[in-house]
């Protein structure tokens, strides 16, 4: 058991490493870089940028180094403490009193994912809270998906071919086929035209920039349900199918008949044996449900204007803000890998067959 968990965690290391490499390759993929476009934009407005300033900036961000060197420097900063951060000024440059700019040589807090060129702030600082909110939304969505899908799946299986079963099946298929952003638009439209309220955002205007408090938290809860429903629909539809199918496989088994013959009550019988077995595949599918949820949350967040990673990722990609985009994709993928690990561990704990067989899957 312990050995299995260790092995599973050990396998995460190459996975995470590969993810970081692919993310960095993505960062490097677009032709040109932010600095080039930034300087072009500056020159268009009439500002001049000194040659040596550009050269120093390029050197500072290792823009002229070969790909692998850039990657390992980035990884090095990510994993280990960088140099001390210079407190004064912004992160890219320091404004001198005569208006000229000189470079700041900031090295940042751990973990250092680089600097966002556009925001002129460290990526960690930008992504931190947004990533946290993305996680909150993803986890709540996952719980919502289960809370809705498991009872409906059980009901559909027990009442196979009833009108309710058909209704749920049809609704489920439509849910699977509807793109997330469309559902978000529909919610916005209904909120706007019927209830005359804005469905967007995660906080009311009053709490937008307020520090965390109980009131802000309840405000968050009041806004959370719309994105949760929007993001969760596709996953719920899929899970209802899985749950229903699994339970239908279990119900005709002999152990069910035996228990029934011995006079076990209907509810107790259903929940104690077949449902427990049918739940296993549900937990092992967290691995693919979670990337779907994260992926859906990105596009939903753009439409609903949520303060999560979605909108900022879109902007950073549009502006070729390389470090920010790459780090965000990496962080989102890390999230799903860790989610998968948790699901594997849960499965180990839940299913003695896997535990005793000595194999993780």
């Amino acid at each position, binding site marked *: 058991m312990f050995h299995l968990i260790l092995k599973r965690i050990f396998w995460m290391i190459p996975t995470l490493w*590969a993810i970081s490499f692919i993310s960095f390759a993505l960062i490097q993929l677009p032709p040109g870089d932010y600095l080039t476009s930034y300087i072009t934009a500056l020159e268009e407005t009439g500002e001049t940028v000194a040659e040596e300033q550009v050269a120093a900036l390029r050197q500072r961000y290792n823009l002229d180094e070969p790909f692998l060197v850039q990657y390992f420097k980035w990884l090095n900063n990510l994993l280990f403490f960088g140099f001390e951060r210079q407190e004064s000024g912004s992160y890219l440059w320091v404004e001198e009193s005569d208006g000229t700019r000189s470079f700041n040589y900031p090295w940042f807090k751990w973990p250092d994912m680089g600097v966002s060129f556009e925001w002129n702030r460290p990526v960690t600082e930008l992504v931190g809270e947004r990533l946290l909110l993305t996680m909150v939304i993803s986890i709540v969505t996952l719980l919502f998906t289960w809370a809705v899908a498991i009872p409906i799946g059980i009901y559909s299986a027990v009442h196979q071919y009833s009108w309710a079963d058909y209704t749920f099946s049809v609704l489920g298929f439509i849910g699977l*086929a509807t793109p997330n*952003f469309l559902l978000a638009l529909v919610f916005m439209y209904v909120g706007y035209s019927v209830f005359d309220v804005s469905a967007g955002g995660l906080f009311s205007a009053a709490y937008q920039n307020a520090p965390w408090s109980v009131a802000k938290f309840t405000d968050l809860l009041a806004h959370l349900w719309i994105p949760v429903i929007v993001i969760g629909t596709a996953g719920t539809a899929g899970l209802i199918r899985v749950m229903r199918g699994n339970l239908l496989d279990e119900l005709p088994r002999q152990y069910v008949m035996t228990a029934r013959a011995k006079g076990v009550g209907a509810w107790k019988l259903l929940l104690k044996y077949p449902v427990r077995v049918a739940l296993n595949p549900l937990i092992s599918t967290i691995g693919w449900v979670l990337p779907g949820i994260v992926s859906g949350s*990105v*596009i939903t967040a753009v439409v609903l204007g949520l303060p999560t990673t979605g909108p900022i990722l879109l902007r950073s*990609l549009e502006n*070729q803000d390389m470090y920010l985009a*790459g780090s965000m994709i990496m962080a989102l*993928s890390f999230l*799903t890998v860790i989610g998968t690990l948790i699901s594997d561990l849960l499965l180990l704990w839940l299913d003695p067959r896997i535990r005793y067989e000595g194999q993780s899957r």
Partner: protein
Amino acid sequence: MMTTESVMPAENRNPATDDPPATEFYVASQWQLMRIKFRKHRLAVWSGRMVVAFYLVAIFCEFAAPYRLEDSHLDHIYAPPQRLHLIADDGLHLFPFVYAYKGMRHPETLRPVYTEDRSRTYPLQFFVRGEPYRLWGLIETDLHLFGVEEGGTLFLLGTDSMGRDLLTRIIYGSRISLTVGLFGVTLSFVFGLLIGAVSGYYGGWIDNLIQRLIEVLRSFPSIPLWMALSASLPSTWSPLQVYFGITVVLSFLGWTGLARVVRGKILALREEDYATAASLVGASKARIMIRHLLPGFTSHIIVSLTLTLPNMILGETSLSFLGLGLRPPITSWGVLLKEAQNVQAVALQPWLLTPAAFVIIAVLAFNFVGDGLRDAADPYAR
């Protein structure tokens, strides 16, 4: 993951009434058996017809659309969908018709307001002469599948900000939206088959490496990854290059699913007696793979491909909606939906959302066909 059995009434799959005569059944080839089994899945059959209809419209989109893509009617900007009528003041008509459609500015809000002029009717006609166009850029003609005679307008789904007929744009968009997935699937197919076959047949560390790679790729959330990849397409590319770029982007994750199916099947099949026999008589590995193993899981590949297609259609739609995928002047369903991006536009012009209905119908149809094919893929299974 998905089965359709519940959508079908139980009596439809009664083997006693639906089975073909026994002799025919026993001499049928594997593919014939699959066809028989697929036909029993009525929803899948109807969805299959729907898919064929969609692709016919996509192929002949210039003919099927009442207007040309570039036609803009500046006197009909943001016109709501025109209604088809059967009953006029003078009684029941044999063919549906539309009234003349007049636009004017609202005196206070200055928004365009449209009214039907009930004095003039235009019957809906089929094979009507309209604006001249070149079918596939080759054949010059002015024949349209349907339309109204000159002087009338036919905006069955309304018009957009430039007075372009939305139905026309959706029909032209289907050509792009439905083929992006097709090309993406073809690419995924080539990669998935090759990599899956190598992984399954050679096994050992190669298999391990490829499986880990697939695991890594699968742990990327698809939309952010697609977003990053398509954002990296150079902005100087021509529409055609962007189109093919997007298909490559979409197939970047698509091949992993197929590779897994192929690997699993090869792992199972290479232990079969006939594979051992072939290798004993001296067949090369490549020959065993192509000649003996591949036919054993062709049907599973087709199923896997059919189920990948809707994801790609949704992917293109989402990317274009965000502005990272296809861009005007290319017209796709996602590009059309981008115009419905903000809530004010949707509140004032709700008909701009209709392309979404086509996306949903297409995706549903593909899913049902895929389900039917999956049930039919193994005709020997109960």
